[in-house]
């Protein structure tokens, strides 16, 4: 048998790393870089002292950046993207040989989609009226209707979507991507996670956690409402702050002179310079006052009659600004924590009533984001992903007007760089309950996102506790059918 796979980081070559880092961080002395080079841990070509220098992927890619619109709580595929005429026909009838008990309890009768479906665009794709603005974009979207999850419980399932395993403590997709590719902008975080204005998603920070990857690669939570923490010292005058900064530099430089070859020390000095630049860039990028009125209007950011939508719209605008500035990975959450479906898409009991509210918040801003990005040419190198942790059952729960959790067949989609427009991949059964054709575990979805970014999901690894860990565990097949 062969030796176990090489534990060296497989994605990078040292020469490429050095030349890239030299341009990205020109202010750092060459000596220091060389020292850093020598200090690189043997297990990895990612220099943890300078984790964000841009790095090449495994192969050339169309997508360089990603926006993930993450709908927490499990959006019903049946009310949105997966058209099932048979379900309309059998509305109110019991499902023979269906499960007696699902996640939350006994199953009730089949229930037709709660929104009208109609054909859209040139492809004639059937999409419901629930999200009219997004529905306008179907000609550009690649739908995957046959996704499956490994868990029917929000916590593990959001873990699975975000980290490729239902357990806690594994690196999120955004962490893997920033670990692999670094960032194009050293003055902003490489990976930004924007919680919904109503609160953080069900699984909280595990959705943007670094797991066992270095903490550098964790998503930085911020939004139009909540800036990055610690951008300035409380109660310290600007003059004192300047004096402290300059004294710190001299103190550290003197110390470095006594330890001239230590790259880690030099890197910490550089990190303070980066921090100072971030202190300037972050307020600049989060200040939306320079956005013209028609932009604010198109996202719905100016319409305070629905303050939650306005706040989500501001997050969407901020996401676009981040991408424009070279942030690698933006995760935009729509929907908050467990609340009986009042604050997220978990429509167990009053699905229609709640989805009316949630759809109004998601639809216009998200559609405007995609249109705005296209108009600016950003979709040339940016992938947009719309996803949710699982789907919902074709029947209502007993005694309720909502649907229970369904991990066996649900829809997510992508559009933008590298994605074939106007396609639908995979099929669920006639009632939309289970994927039956081209069954695609979420592993495949994540493998495809990595592929679009020029990363081979089987080669993007990190050794942890004796295992070459991957986002896709030992699974995953790229969905070539949706690639442009």
């Amino acid at each position, binding site marked *: 048998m062969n030796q176990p796979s090489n534990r060296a980081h497989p994605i990078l070559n040292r020469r490429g790393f050095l030349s890239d880092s030299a341009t990205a961080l020109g202010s750092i002395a060459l000596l220091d870089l060389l020292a850093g080079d020598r200090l690189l841990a043997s297990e990895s070509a990612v220099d*943890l002292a300078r984790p964000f220098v841009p790095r090449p992927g495994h192969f050339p890619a169309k997508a360089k950046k990603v926006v993930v619109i993450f709908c927490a709580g499990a959006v019903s595929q049946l009310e949105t993207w997966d058209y099932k005429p048979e379900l309309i026909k059998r509305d109110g009838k019991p499902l023979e040989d269906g499960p007696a008990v699902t996640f939350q309890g006994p199953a009730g009768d089949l229930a037709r989609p709660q929104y009208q479906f109609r054909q859209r665009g040139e492809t004639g794709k059937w999409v419901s009226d629930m999200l009219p603005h997004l529905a306008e974009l179907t000609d550009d979207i690649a739908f995957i209707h046959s996704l499956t999850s490994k868990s029917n*419980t929000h916590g593990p399932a959001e873990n699975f979507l975000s980290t490729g395993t239902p357990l806690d403590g594994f690196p999120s997709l955004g962490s893997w991507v920033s670990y692999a590719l670094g960032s194009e902008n050293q003055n902003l975080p490489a990976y930004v996670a924007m919680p919904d204005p109503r609160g953080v998603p069900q699984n909280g*920070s595990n959705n943007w956690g670094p797991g066992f990857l*270095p903490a550098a690669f964790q998503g930085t939570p911020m939004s139009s409402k909540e800036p990055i923490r610690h*951008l300035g010292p409380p109660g310290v005058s600007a003059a004192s702050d300047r004096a*402290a900064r300059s004294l710190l530099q001299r103190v550290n430089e003197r110390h470095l002179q006594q330890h001239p070859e230590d790259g880690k020390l030099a890197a910490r000095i550089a990190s303070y310079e980066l921090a100072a630049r971030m202190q300037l860039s972050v307020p600049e990028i989060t200040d939306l006052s320079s956005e013209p009125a028609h932009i604010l209007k198109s996202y719905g950011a100016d319409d305070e009659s629905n303050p939650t939508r306005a706040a989500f719209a501001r997050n969407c605008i901020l996401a676009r600004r981040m991408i424009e500035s070279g942030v690698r990975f933006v995760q935009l959450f729509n929907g908050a924590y467990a609340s009986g479906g009042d604050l997220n898409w978990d429509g167990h009991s009053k699905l229609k009533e709640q989805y009316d509210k949630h759809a109004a918040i998601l639809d216009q801003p998200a559609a405007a984001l995609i249109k705005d990005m296209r108009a600016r040419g950003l979709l040339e190198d940016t992938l947009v992903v719309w996803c949710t942790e699982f789907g919902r059952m074709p029947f209502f729960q007993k005694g309720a007007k909502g649907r229970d959790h369904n991990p066996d067949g649900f829809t997510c989609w992508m559009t933008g760089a590298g994605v074939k427009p106007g396609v639908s991949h995979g099929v669920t059964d006639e009632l939309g309950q289970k994927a039956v054709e081209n069954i695609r575990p979420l592993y495949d979805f994540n493998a495809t996102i990595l592929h679009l970014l020029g990363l081979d999901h089987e080669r993007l690894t990190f050794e942890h506790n004796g295992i070459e860990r991957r986002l896709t565990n030992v699974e995953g097949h790229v969905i070539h059918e949706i690639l442009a």
Partner: protein
Amino acid sequence: MGFYCKAMIMVKSVLLATAIVVLQTQAQTAEVDFVRDVRPIFEKHCYSCHGATKQKSGLRLDVKSEAFKGGDGYGPSLIAGEADESPLIELVRSDDEYSRMPPKGEPLSAKEIGTLTRWVDAGAAWPDGIDLVQLEDRLDHWSFKPSQLPGVPATKDRQWSRNAIDHFILSRLQQAGLTPAPPADEVTWLRRVTLDLTGLPPTPQEVTAFLEEVAKGEPTYIAVVDRLLKSPRYGERWAQHWLDVVRYADTHGFEVNTERPNAWPYRDYVIEAFNNDTPYDRFIKQQLVGDAMDAGAATGFLVTASVLLPGQIGKDAPSIRLARQDSLDEIVNNIGQTFLGLSVGCARCHDHKFDPISAKDYYSMQAFVAGVEYADRKIESEESDDLKKEAEKLRQRVAHIDRRLASFVPLAHPVEDRNVNNEETNAKQNTHSFSPLKAKFVRLTIHDCNLHPSLGLIEPCIDELEIFTNEAEPRNIALASAGAKVTASGSRSSASHKLEHINDGRYGNSRSWMSDTHGRGWVMVELSEATSIASIVWGRDRLGKFTDRLATAFTLQAGLDADALTTLVYVPPQRPLVRATMNTDRFMPLRTTQLRFTVQSTNSLEPCIDELEVYNTSGDNIALASQGTVVTTSGDTIVADRHEPRFIQDGEYGNSRSWMSNAVGEGWVELKFATEQEIDRVVWGRDREDKFQDRLPTQYRIEGLVGEDWKLLADSTDRIPWTEDAQPAPSFSIAGLTLEETDEANRLLEEKRQLESKIKAAQNGQKAFAGTFRKPDDIHLLRRGDPEQPAESVTPAVLSAIDELSLPNETAEQERRKVLADWIASPENPLTARVMANRIWQWHFGVGLVETANDFGRNGAKPSHPELLDWLAQEFIRSGWSIKHMHRQIVLSSTYRQSTRHNAEAAVVDADIRLLWRYPSRRLEAEAIRDAMLAASGRLNLKMGGRGFDLFNKRGGLSGFTPVESFTDEGLRRMIYAHKVRRERDAVFGAFDCPDAGQSTPRRIESTTPIQALNLFNSRFTIEQSDAFASRVIKEVGDDVSAQIQRVYEIALNRKPAADEFAEAQPVVRAHGLQTLCRVLFNSNEFLFLP
């Protein structure tokens, strides 16, 4: 117990049976030859997935023994003589394209299938010794072989080596043509070893004492190490390393992430075990079966992982089975990686890819712990029964105090009853103009002041009180220079604060009056003569620097007779903002038959109230249904057994017994009493159990029926308005009480505090999240790890590659764990001692001799010094598994005493310093940085053990966690005592590669990011500790700036500043204060790196 390595693996009876068949059918097989006819078919169609590089479904067809063994969970794939029964033949023949092999490319031709069929029917002859590849013996791996005491190598330089460790290190260096770095200077070693063993820097006194003795040589060094190892700080430091590995946390993880309130006894157990130098073999056994060893809390080890609680698991049976499997998997992983350094969990779905661990081994390991449940357990001890009785008595006393305290709430001033101002005071200046009146006396009485961000309610302060005449050009006649005299309720006296400063005509904090009482006090000015006055002006700090200590509620009075003053201004104290747990509204007694509680807005969604209590003047809650009171509501959201109107008056607390309105943000409840009552108090809450903070009424009215009309008794308008980020109200406030009430309330509060800490201590002796034990589940091997595909049942057995030891299925639960513990904690186990010796080494040097501390398997790193590792393992066993003995060996070695000095030539040979040609410096961990800052600031609270302090606004739960920014008291304890919320990294120190307790962290990764810089440079924590550090130093050395700078360097860096450092620091300190230098040094590399 015998430990041995089998020379060969996977000798199965199938093979033997096959051999017999082969002999019998030799003659007939002549027509199909394996090498000529069969193997080419395998090569063409099968080896790409079932050969040397890939073994899909665990099947391998290029090695005889493997081919006959078959794939995962499907039994043998070839049954000699029976082609029709052989899965391999069936799969290549299949018509169903989904199950046919190979899945891609051309199916086998009919001729090929015919060849294979005839070959199998004829006995599947596969001659020995003709395979083109050889199966690697997975047992031929260093860590599975017994460790033996190696000879200590002879080295040329006998001077350098102090002990065996040095000989091994030096010998390896010399092989590589390298020489060790010169020793570090004495103080550097002292700082290094102190930080390393205790996680705190040495104090200047310890440095001085050491330097006085250092000339005596080795005994001084030994004494230092003895002192450090005896310090309780040692266990607090080293337990953290262990908790990283076992991913300890104080919440349950996953979506709901609720508090695990009794996890900490395990954390305390680990600290104590390190401090006591509990022999490591016993340490292992206690963690696996401490329930049988009078160390109950130790079994917290078994259940340190994230777990789904019953309410979070789906009601469908597959969800329940999967959750149970996941929770058992975590236990097996924890045991495998922590004690044995093996990733056993890999074999959950298939045989391990690299290590000789089969899926069956994995499930056999599960069977050892199949009776463990994740739950609290009563930890029995001698005192626990007594404590329980004692706690009950104390609890009764607390209930009594609570009843009494409940009456000490300020009266509500509902909006219609308000004949008062409701203005906000300004720290800089407040001007009150009024109709002129003649006055000889003016009194300002303070009822309440704002909360200090870290200290809470403290003494109010006024820099100047001015009283202006009713003249065209008003004069301030309050001035002492104008003959006015001033008295006060009580004054603090210091250089800045004196009573006479209040009317000295000078502004600013340094010329101000400060009360001697928290939150209240009065000053009275006696004018030189009765004068007509028209306005009064006062401020906290007219210079605008200070905004704390600001009076927010006060009465301003004036008149001719000190005992009969006219009230000019009354700003009543605001009642505390509403809290989710409990709120009290007190009002003037009213006789009524009906009370209405109307919610006008909530912080989110439909309002929810867990209990509405109405007290009559005799102190009885007459809202209860059992008192004959009838409830009606505006409308309800009914969830059976959780939200129903009747729960609002059933005497039971908590979300699961509460009323919920059917309308977002509004709703009302009416209570009709059986008889007329004289009522004076309403007590209500959203969730007294403090789990839910949403759906909280934030604006409300309480009315009582008088005749036909509703009379407003209390409302939320005089409370501090609720906002999302409002500081939570203290549970009790003295604002608005009379002085007598305050004294009595304070006395009761103090008594309650003492009682509660006694109760807590008593309770804590009883419960720990240490697992409960029951009859073990039957464990089956699961195909592909899927609980819905159970295969053969298994009984407890240790890893078959390392030893033969199995138990019958009827073995009792505790006995199973005991046998497992004995097997792991045996000196003969080849892995146990090596794994721990390596961890100890790693925690001293940053990297272990084996870099992958949790993986000693074939995929793990090879040891850099195999003999040294074995020597350490043997020495560890020989010392009676004493971890402290190992520390002494290491920190007193010449290897450890090297300087960090760089050597360009050595770096070319060994860039990662694995051969230790110098001491490899590294950044301190998050906890050590925080602790060291607190040690320097003089604020470190050394209280040990018990419930953790809070890093966030709550201890667990669904929604976002708001970080605590300013810490006092308990919050200044060592960070190991922080309540660890799984997945939520601390807002400041989490970025310093602090693990989130999701998965095991065998070694802290060290990354460098601008977020770290922002956190450490700008956080309130740093700013406050810098201030405290500066105050401490000024107190110690006085006003001399040079002395201050020197002291700051001595405390933070254990050295004196050099001349140019002095020169740089002085102007900064003079211009911006000593705290600026403190902030700089907290951020300096020298402070943050192990020297």
